[in-house]
């Protein structure tokens, strides 16, 4: 057991700290793809604080894959108001996929502008009748005259209003078994035949869209991997998504905000933190946060020390993290009582209404990215070796 990163990393941390200090007042302005954002993203890449391990030829920094350095960067950036590197599904999901399975041309064409924030991507996986059961998707692609002609409907497509490109799962081999008939296609969003409709959520925001695809034509080369291998390609990417939904270090920050809230909020002049029934709920949650943090250390360690096994630790992160987060935000609402129901621009609103927003949003995350029922299936089947749901007669 050694939780120190070692002296060579102390130097690195000093360097990051200095950069952060020097740039903490930087303001990045404008909408996505603004010059200011792109420039800042490029600065971060140039210093190796973003896209660190991605080869220079594809627009990255070209450094080693050093998990500890990545963590130090994340830690130091988190402590400061310095603008954070851009995220999004293009960077988190598409880039790793292309690096692993894309052609040289695809890497050259897409990775650099994606990293720089010049191309925003959206994800076209789910369909109205294929939520948890992705493999049953029905959007069709036919190869006609060296073009994919795509027809169908996608849902839960985030940032589709802003995106220039969509990475999309499409059924191209209608006669193959359902997991084997899917291809992974790259669709420019300005192609004729694409219609976007925002989906309003319970939070009041519209982070997601429906996408209607009618005779959408893209070049035959806009495929990642081979025909019918889309399921495999997508699953490589899905792995990248799951871990990022419920970082216990973020939850710890929220817990600390909750503690502050409980110290400032009063009932009949008494601080809520001095009410033991509320305090006991707080402490229960704190214990769970600490357990999940310890679990995260184990995962981190397994990334640094490849001989360490942490399969189960990884499988449970999404399930546990989203449920805990939802509960934590719910406790904050109870702490505020009637004040906790305030929303939008209401007078007396606490913390900009973020607690209610998160209470709902994390319920969305319990559902999204594989519902927590699906997560339990996965844990029992892949980590505990229990049988898959048996095939049903007549299905």
């Amino acid at each position, binding site marked *: 057991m050694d939780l120190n990163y070692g002296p060579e990393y102390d130097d690195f941390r000093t360097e990051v700290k200095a950069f952060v200090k020097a740039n903490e007042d930087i303001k990045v302005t404008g909408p996505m793809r603004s010059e200011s954002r792109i420039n800042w993203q490029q600065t971060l890449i140039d210093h190796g604080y973003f896209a660190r391990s991605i080869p220079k030829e594809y627009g990255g920094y070209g450094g080693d894959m050093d998990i500890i350095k990545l963590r130090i960067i994340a830690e130091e950036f988190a402590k400061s108001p310095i603008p954070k590197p851009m995220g999004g599904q293009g960077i988190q999901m598409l880039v790793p996929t292309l690096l692993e399975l894309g052609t040289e041309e695809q890497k050259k064409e897409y990775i650099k502008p994606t990293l720089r924030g010049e191309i925003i991507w959206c994800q076209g996986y789910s369909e109205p009748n294929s939520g948890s059961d992705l493999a049953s998707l029905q959007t069709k692609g036919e190869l006609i005259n060296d073009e994919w002609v795509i027809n169908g409907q996608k849902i839960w497509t985030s940032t589709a209003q802003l995106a220039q490109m969509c990475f999309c799962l499409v059924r191209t081999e209608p006669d193959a078994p359902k997991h084997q008939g899917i291809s992974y296609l790259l669709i420019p969003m300005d192609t004729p035949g694409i219609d976007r409709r925002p989906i309003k959520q319970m939070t009041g925001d519209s982070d997601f869209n429906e996408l209607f695809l009618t005779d959408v034509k893209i070049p035959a080369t806009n495929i990642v991997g081979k025909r019918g291998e889309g399921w495999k390609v997508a699953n490589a990417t899905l792995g990248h998504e799951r871990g990022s939904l419920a970082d216990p270090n973020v939850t710890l920050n929220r817990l600390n905000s909750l503690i502050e809230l409980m110290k400032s909020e009063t*009932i009949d*002049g008494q601080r809520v933190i001095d009410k033991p*029934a509320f305090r006991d709920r707080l402490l229960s949650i704190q214990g769970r946060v600490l357990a999940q943090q310890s679990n995260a250390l184990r995962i981190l360690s397994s990334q640094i020390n490849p001989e360490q096994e942490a399969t189960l630790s990884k499988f449970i992160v999404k399930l546990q993290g989203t449920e805990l987060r939802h509960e934590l935000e719910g406790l904050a609402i109870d702490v505020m009582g*009637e004040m906790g129901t305030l929303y939008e621009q209401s007078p007396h609103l606490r913390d900009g209404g973020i607690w209610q927003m998160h209470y709902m949003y994390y319920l969305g995350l319990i559902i999204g990215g594989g519902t927590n029922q699906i997560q339990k299936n996965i844990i029992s089947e892949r980590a505990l070796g229990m049988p898959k749901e048996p095939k049903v007669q007549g299905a």
Partner: protein
Amino acid sequence: MYFGLSEEQKSLEDNIKKYLDDNASIEIIRSVVEGDLDKANEIHRGLVDLGISSLMVPEEYGGLGLDMLFATVVAGALGYGTAPCPYAGAYVMAPLALSIAGSDKQKEEWLPKIAGGEALIGVGISEYIGARENAGIEFSNDSVSGRCLFVIDGINADAFIVSNKSGELFLIPSDSSGIEIVELTTVDKTRTSIEIIFKNAKAEVLPGSSDNKSAADKVVDAGRLMLSADTVGAAQVMLDKSVAYALERKQFGRLIGSFQAVKHMCAEMAAELEPCHSMVWHAAHCLDNVPEESRLMACHTKAHVSEVGKQISKTATEVHGGMGFTDELGLHYWFKRIGLNRQLLGSPELIREEAAKLQGFDQ
């Protein structure tokens, strides 16, 4: 011995549900939430025509003089239909406060108007239960100063009944000088909440509330029961919709309702919710007939139903998958209604502590 609703109660419940089913579809609720006040007024009128404003007004003042069980049945039906309409404050707590603590003159002035749907009285009693931000009012020289948060049904009201910390109730016409209204926006936009800031606003005491807390307590009990019934109604919709969705939505080549995980989620919701119906009836019966048990039953009902409601609002949303998270299906209107009910007039921990005190557990 008969534990349950009478034919009259069932028929009132059915009438209100049917009215809302016909006149307050999700689309209409959505337009109200987005600001269509005419629609809300129309629904309000329709419900007044069905009697919701006259239920609790004694017959001698032109009301129906019905009991708390009737009021509870109505509250459940309004929650079931997410009625965008005043009720718990204006039509239950206010007439009750006037009936038990008002002077003859106050009763004569206000009760017939309430019954007729011509007067709306907002009720501000949160500070009596537990003051946030040290809010609260002081009464002297026939006028009130201070502020009340989360006045129920106070928007566009003709008068307010508000309580000070010791449970004394005051009646203040809304056209008095020295009244500032601050509109509050909560997650649940099917109902309204306001803050009132009083600066020497002319006020009358409800005389029956001066020497003891029992009037204020009864008003709080009734309010809590209405919120509980509203939550039970809303949770029932969420369960019903979950079962229906599970019997219609297919994944992995099967109805999702054939997966044991989904079946058990629905079974757990049903197992938790079913006794809540009986509990609100039972609590109403105690408020009407068993004074020595009424406060404890009101506390426990509010706390327990709030916990069950919270769990169901989460689970039902999960059963609906991504659709549960959208505005399109509108499930969130009930989710938010349950969320607001949970906090109004005391959240579960606070009410359980009150229930402990009622039983002398704090020595």
